[in-house]
C-alpha cells in the first residue's frame, strides 16, 4: 500500500498530439461547387466527423490535474514554491533568481501541486500527484531545507491516490489526507495517514484512519488533535496522541456534518475551527463545544458557534484578524464577518474565483499605513481590498489567473500565477518589480 519510491520517470502524461489539417474548396468554374457522390464519398466524411469528434473530446482533458495552486512559502530568506509541473523550487529574493542547485525532483515533476509546502524545523514537506486516466500516483516528500535532498533516501513516499491538501506534522509524525487508495476496496473514500517521518524508521505507516470521502482539505493540528474534512461534508477531529487505540477508527473524537462538501483547508484559531463548504456556508465551531455537543449537524449558536451564508461555494481557507473573519467565495465575494456574532460587516466582490486565501498586509501611502487584503483572482490580478470597509484600494497587475495565496515578505508581494510564473510587486505602489519562470528559471519581466 505504502512504500518507498524508486526512480519514477515520465510522471507527466504526454500532451495529446494536436490535430491539424486543411480544407480545400474548389472555385474552379469548370467544376461544380458542390457534388455529392453518395455512399462512396460519405464513408470518409463520416470517419472524418467521428475523428473530429473524438479529437475534440480527447483534446480537452478534464482528468489530468493541473495544479498551480501552491503559493510561495518563506524560510531563511528563501522562497519555496511548487511549480505547475510539480517540482518544488527555491527562489532567492536577493539575487532574484531560482536556485538551480535546489530542485525536487531533479527531473520530471510530481504532476500537480495544490497546497503550500510546510516547513518544520530544518525540513520541508509537501505533496503532489498526477493521474493517467483514473490511475493516480501521489507522492509525499520531505526534504532537507539546506540541499533539497529527500529525507527518505532517493525520493518520497508514494501512494496511489490524489494528494491535494497540505500535510501537517506533530513531532516525527507526518499527517496527510488522501482520497481512496488505488484498487483497494474497503469502502473508505479517503484516509488520514500518520507516517513516521524519522529517517531511520523501519515502518513508515503508523496507522491510517478511514474517512467517508475524499480528503482535499489538508490536515490541521491543534494540540493532540488533527482536524481533517472530506468532500462528503464531514469534519473529523482525530486523536493523534501516542496512546494505544483498539482500532484506528477509535481515534475519532467527534465529527461534524456540514451542509455541503468541505474542499478547502481548516483554520484553527483561539480554540475555534473555521472552514467553508460547497453549500455556500462558512462555519465557526468551538473545539471545546464540540467535545460536549451531541448534535453532529447543528451549530451551537448559544456557545458562540455560527454558520454564515457566503452566497457561493467557499473553498479558500478563512483568515482571521482582530475579531474579524474574512470569508472568500468562488463567486469572487469577500465578506468580513464578525467573529463573535457571525454577522457580516461588509461584503465586496472582485472579478474571478477566489480559490486560495487572501494575504493580509500593511499598505503604505505616504505616511499613512492601511491594513489591506491581497485577494488572488482566478480571472487575473491580485486585488487590494481595505479591511475597514471592503473598498478596492488598488491592484497588483499579474495579467494571469492566480489561484495560490500571495506572500508578503520584506515589502514585496510574491505571487505564483497560474501560468507558472513567480511575479513580485512593491506593496507600496503595487508596481511589478520582477518575474521569473518557475519551470526553467528564465526571466519574464
Amino acid at each position, binding site marked *: 500500500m505504502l512504500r518507498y519510491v524508486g526512480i519514477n520517470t515520465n510522471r507527466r502524461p504526454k500532451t495529446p498530439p494536436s490535430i491539424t489539417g486543411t480544407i480545400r474548396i474548389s472555385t474552379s468554374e469548370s467544376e461544380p461547387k458542390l457534388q455529392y457522390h453518395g455512399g462512396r464519398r460519405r464513408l470518409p466524411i463520416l470517419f472524418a466527423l467521428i475523428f473530429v469528434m473524438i479529437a475534440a473530446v480527447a483534446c480537452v482533458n478534464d482528468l489530468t490535474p493541473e495544479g498551480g495552486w501552491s503559493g510561495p512559502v518563506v524560510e531563511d530568506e528563501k522562497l519555496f514554491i511548487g511549480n505547475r509541473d510539480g517540482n518544488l523550487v527555491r527562489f532567492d529574493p536577493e539575487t532574484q533568481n531560482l536556485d538551480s542547485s535546489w530542485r525536487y525532483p531533479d527531473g520530471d515533476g510530481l504532476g500537480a501541486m495544490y497546497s503550500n509546502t510546510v516547513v518544520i524545523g530544518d525540513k520541508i514537506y509537501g505533496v503532489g500527484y498526477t493521474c493517467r486516466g483514473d490511475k493516480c500516483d501521489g507522492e509525499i516528500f520531505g526534504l532537507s531545507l539546506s540541499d533539497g535532498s529527500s529525507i527518505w533516501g532517493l525520493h518520497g513516499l508514494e501512494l496511489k491516490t490524489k494528494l491535494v491538501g497540505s500535510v501537517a506534522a506533530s513531532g516525527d509524525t507526518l499527517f496527510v489526507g488522501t482520497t481512496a487508495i488505488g484498487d483497494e476496496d474497503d469502502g473508505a473514500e479517503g484516509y488520514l495517514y500518520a507516517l513516521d517521518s524519522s529517517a531511520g524508521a523501519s515502518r513508515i505507516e503508523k496507522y491510517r484512519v478511514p474517512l467517508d470521502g475524499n480528503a482535499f482539505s489538508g490536515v490541521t493540528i491543534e494540540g493532540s488533535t488533527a482536524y481533517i474534512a472530506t468532500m462528503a461534508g464531514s469534519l473529523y477531529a482525530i486523536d493523534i496522541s501516542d496512546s494505544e487505540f483498539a482500532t484506528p477508527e477509535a481515534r475519532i473524537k467527534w465529527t461534524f456534518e456540514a451542509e455541503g462538501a468541505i474542499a478547502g483547508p481548516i483554520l484553527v484559531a483561539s480554540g475555534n475551527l473555521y472552514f467553508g463548504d460547497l453549500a455556500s456556508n462558512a462555519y465557526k465551531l468551538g473545539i471545546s463545544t464540540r467535545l460536549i455537543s451531541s448534535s453532529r449537524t447543528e451549530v451551537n449558536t448559544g456557545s458562540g458557534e455560527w454558520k454564515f451564508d457566503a452566497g457561493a461555494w467557499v473553498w479558500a481557507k478563512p483568515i482571521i484578524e482582530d475579531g474579524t473573519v474574512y470569508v472568500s467565495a468562488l463567486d469572487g465575494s469577500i465578506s468580513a464577518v464578525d467573529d463573535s456574532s457571525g454577522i457580516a460587516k461588509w461584503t465586496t466582490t472582485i472579478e474571478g474565483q477566489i480559490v486560495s486565501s487572501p494575504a493580509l498586509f500593511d499598505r503604505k501611502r505616504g505616511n499613512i499605513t492601511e491594513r489591506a487584503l491581497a485577494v488572488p483572482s*482566478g480571472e487575473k490580478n491580485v486585488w487590494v481590498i481595505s479591511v475597514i470597509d471592503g473598498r478596492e484600494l488598488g491592484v497588483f497587475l499579474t495579467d494571469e489567473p492566480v489561484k495560490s495565496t500571495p506572500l508578503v515578505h520584506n515589502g514585496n508581494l510574491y505571487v505564483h500565477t497560474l501560468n507558472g510564473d513567480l511575479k513580485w510587486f512593491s506593496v507600496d505602489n503595487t508596481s511589478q518589480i520582477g518575474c521569473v519562470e518557475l519551470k526553467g528559471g528564465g526571466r519574464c519581466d
Partner: protein
Amino acid sequence: MEIFGILWLEVIMRPMINSLALLYQLLFSNFGLSIIVFTVLIRLAMIPLTVRQTRQMKKMQTIQPKLKAIQDKYKGKKGDARRQMSSETMGLYKDAGVSPVGCLGPMIIQMPIWIGFYRAILRTMPSTPEGMANLSDLFYSWNPAIAGVPFNSQFLGLSLVDLVSAAVLPWNYALPVLVGASMFLQQKMTTNPTSDPRQKQTNQMMLWMMPIMFGAFTWQFPAGLAVYILFSNAIGVVIQYYVGGKQPVELFGRSFLGTDASRAERAEQVAAEAAGSNAKTPPPSSEESDEDDQSTEILGKDSRRSNRNRARRTGRRTRRRRNKGS
C-alpha cells in the same frame, strides 16, 4: 472566436450540466439514472432530425442509379459538359426533394450535442480540484442541486467517471461489446438495401467498421459516456424501427421484428435485388420504373409530388415529339 465559446457555454454546456444535476437531484441522487433519462429526453428532442435524416437517406438511395447514369454519361468529359453534368445532378436532387448534404446535416447538428453531453458528464463529475472549482461557475444560481456536489458517480457497481477499461468485471468487457452491438444494430437498421455492388461494399464496411471503432474507443471512455452511447443507440434503434415503418431487421440470415406486410415487402425487395444483380445490364426503362415505384412508397408526399411532376414533364415531352412528328 470568443462568441463561439460563449454560445457553446450558454447554449449547450450550462443547460446540459444543470439538467443533469437537476435530474440527479430528482432521481434519488443516482447519476446513472440521470444520464439515462437525459439521453431519452435528448433523443426525443432530436426525433424530427432523425426522421428528416432517415427520409433524406432513403431519397438519396433511390436516386443513386440515376446519379450514376449522369456520371457515366459525362465520364471523361470536360468544360461545358461538366457544367451540364452539375446542372443535371442538381436538377435530379431538386426533383427528388433531396439536399446534397441533407443526410449529413442532421448528423452535423447532433455532433455538438454528443460532444456537449460528453463534456457535460465530465464537468458535472470532475475528478480534479480545478474541475470542481470551475463547476461552481457553470451552475445556475437557482439550481438546488448546487449544494449536492460532488455527485455520487456509482451506478450498478460502476464508477461513471472512471474509464471503462478500469471498470470492474464484467463491465469493462460488457460495455464496449454492448456499445458496439447496439451501434451495429442501429447501423443495420439505417442501411438501405442497394443493388450497386460498390455501394453494397461501402455499406458493409460502415456496418462493421463503425461499431468496431466505437467499441474500441469505448474502452477508453468514461463509463458515463459509454452508458450514454449505449442508451442513445438503444433508443435510436426503437426510434428507427418506428420511423422506418417497422421494417424487419435481418441478423445472421434471419428476420426479426417487423410486421407481416413489411416482411413481405422486404422479401419482394430481396427478390428484386437478386434479379437486379443477376441481370448485368438491366434495361434502363424498367429499372427506372422500378425505382420510381419503390421511391413513391418510401419517400412520402414530397417525393410523390416530384414524381408526378416528372411524369407530367415526360408526358409533355412525348406529346411535343408526337406533334413534331405529325
